[in-house]
């Protein structure tokens, strides 16, 4: 049987979920024998490939690039897992939503002008910094998500539980404290 094609993606998040993934330690070796990692921040692959079996998405959908990639992932992936609280709830990146629908302007003003030590100015060159969305969304608000893996970050043991279920061809099901946010 072909090895399972797995991808991990990093949208608007802090990479803590990927750090937790690396905390799988020796299980990573076991995993490496059973899956093919086709796209990930830890793999040098520029374009999200076709026919991916499982994709773990870390991070909220914060900007236009995130949204475009989320849609591409959905179209090219069988099973999509929201990986960590930012993907599941929008979490910390969504705190700017509390500032109302013009929050993108005010957070950019704050970060690039008020806090700039040198060359204050909001980057506007096309294709360099993606436009912020008016409202940060959890992944399932942008595209259909199949399974949810909450936690900030999800502990390695929780990621392992889900990955083992996926590898065994079972429907992933987390229960009790394995569903704890935060």
């Amino acid at each position, binding site marked *: 049987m072909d090895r399972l094609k797995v991808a991990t993606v990093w949208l608007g998040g802090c990479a803590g979920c990927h750090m937790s993934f690396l905390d799988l330690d020796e299980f990573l070796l076991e995993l490496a024998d059973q899956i093919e990692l086709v796209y990930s921040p830890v793999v040098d692959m520029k374009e999200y490939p076709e026919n991916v079996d499982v994709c773990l998405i870390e991070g909220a959908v914060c900007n236009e690039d995130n949204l475009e990639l989320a849609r591409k992932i959905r179209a090219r992936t069988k099973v999509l897992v929201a990986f960590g609280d930012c993907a599941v709830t929008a979490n910390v990146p969504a705190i700017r939503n*509390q500032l109302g629908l013009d929050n993108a302007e005010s957070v950019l003003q704050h970060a690039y002008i008020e806090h700039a030590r040198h060359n204050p100015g909001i980057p506007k060159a096309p294709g360099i910094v993606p436009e912020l969305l008016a409202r940060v969304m959890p992944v399932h608000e942008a595209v259909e998500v199949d399974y*949810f893996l909450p936690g*900030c970050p999800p502990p390695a043991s929780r990621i392992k539980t889900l990955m083992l279920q996926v590898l065994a061809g079972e429907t992933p099901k987390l229960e*009790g404290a394995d569903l*704890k946010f935060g």
Partner: protein
Amino acid sequence: MAAKTLTIDGKEISAEEGATILQAAEEHGITMPTLCHLDGVYDVGACRLCLVEVAGTPKLLPACTTRVTEGMDVKTDTERLRKYRRMTLELLFAERNHVCAVCVANGHCELQSLAYSQGMDHVRYEYRFPHWEVDNTHPLFGMDPHRCILCTRCVRACWHIEGAGTLNVSGRSAGSHIITDLNQPWGLADSCTRCGKCVMSCPTGALYYKGSTVSEMERDRSKLEFIVTAREKKQWIA
């Protein structure tokens, strides 16, 4: 007082007349999720998590405010109830800004633990992301309305355990919020005795001891129990 005989989850029990379904269930070791219930203050049926099915009525009834009747047949854990409980929890999360990862009560929060114990893996409703002002004017305590679920446990503890009447509910519907005195900053609320019972009673991180940071907000709920037991049973049991 006369006793009533009833069935809860197929178990025949008797309860005192006037007892609520929740009291009767707890006396017989039958548990159900609760959130706005707090031992020692009266129940208001605000959170709807203890909804139960009672044979003969199509409505779901809150166990904390429904009195037992003779021959009552109660179910506390059915597919329908699980569905509504999860829906209620998701609505609570969608209504305000519950960011567990950066909350003082992370790991010590009744809303958080209820969510995972009821199998809530995500919120299906669109988050509202309202904006509220945090009140840090009090010398000892802070209030963050983003984390408030309007259970009113703090209001009831303030009025009926402490007897100060500082905390109140203002506004209606999504605009409801907890106020201090006549909607003044908490630090200027003269009636506040600084007893901290509101903080002890809060199920989330909405009320906190100043200076506590992420995950540090632990409460000593037994102090409330101590006072209530002393008042009701005249027993000073520490």
